[in-house]
């Protein structure tokens, strides 16, 4: 709990909005957030519960990648994990 999906606001009257999720559109309630067309909201059970902070998202993207370069290249498994279904490939 809980499934929520980022959705782009297409148009809004402050209470309801048309949002788009990768080409799919829906009318949803946005009365609990302040979102302008073009912004992204987090949609759950038909209502928007949050607005995307793009600066934080950029930082998160960078954080995901911060660890790259630390680990030995091409090494993503520990030796004691046992056989995987694709072990035969390696």
């Amino acid at each position, binding site marked *: 709990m809980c499934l929520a*999906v980022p*959705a782009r606001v297409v148009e809004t009257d402050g209470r309801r909005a048309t949002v788009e999720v*990768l*080409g*799919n*559109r*829906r009318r949803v309630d946005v009365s609990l957030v302040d979102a302008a067309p073009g912004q992204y909201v987090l*949609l759950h059970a038909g209502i928007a519960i949050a607005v995307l902070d793009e600066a934080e998202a950029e930082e998160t993207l960078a954080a995901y990648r911060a660890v790259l370069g630390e680990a030995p290249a091409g090494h993503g498994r520990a030796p004691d994990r046992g056989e*995987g279904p*694709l072990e035969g490939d390696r």
Partner: protein
Amino acid sequence: MTERVTLAHGDGGEATHRLIAEIFYPALANPALLQGGDSAVLDPPGAGRLALTTDSFVVHPIFFPGGDLGRLAVCGTVNDLAVAGARPLWLSAGFIIEEGFPLADLRRLVGSMAAAAAEAGVQIVAGDTKVVGRGQADGCFINTAGVGLVPQGRDLGAHRIRTGQAILVSGPVGEHGVAVLSTRAGLAFETPVVSDAAPLIALAQAVLTAAPGAACMRDPTRGGLATALADLAADSGCDLVVEEAEIPVSPQVEGACDLLGLDPLYLACEGRLLLFCPAEEAEAALAAMRAHPLGRGAHIIGRVGGSGGRAFLRTAIGGTRRLERLTGENLPRIC
């Protein structure tokens, strides 16, 4: 003629005769059908084994983006023949229609069947119509049976799946499932996704020509790609491993699934081919698929592992998880 189907239309008398003459015959016209006998008597076109399949189509809604029940009824049966390596020859079509069903809708369905049959290069040579009382059928049910010819020496099936073979899919998955769901009242979302329902004969033939060592083909329908893989793993006794990053899913299907909490791997396709072929023929098979309009989005998605009988997905981050058959309906979720 009245605007709606009545019980009289199913009586076998004058009303039935007029229904057939005014709706079925004009759309489906072919010599065998128009002979109007109790059976269609046909000349087998050559040596080989016969493939026979049947399917009933009860999907609702009857009309959905990209198709309708009629198109589905033809494509579904034709595809079952195609994946057996058969050249589809003839179809029969049986209708069970609910009293009150609009005749205009029936005309539309039959027209779709005719168009799909023409696309597939098959003829609908025998048919039947029954009408049941209000509430005893959900609008219209269609059963189709199909006969095809499997050339000598061709033997496709799960029993021929072997370790090391490549697994291919002819295009993005889950499209039919999303298209049908989008029309369901209460979900209220607009999607650009349309059903992928299509006859796969030409594609299948192209693939078999390019990859003569092909072992098995399947058209994943209800339950989606994952269920088809789970079934084939169990039937073949081999472990199947597919790569999440290689399975084609359109962004629009992904978005619709995210919105509703569904998994595209479990949503129905109606115009996709799953292929198992020797690894050395995989590139040729892929090229043949991509050269065909229905196979532009084809990908090599995995390979057959050792013995086991389970299907696995290697996830985008390198983990593994099992693919089981779909249990229950694909329901929209909030959790």
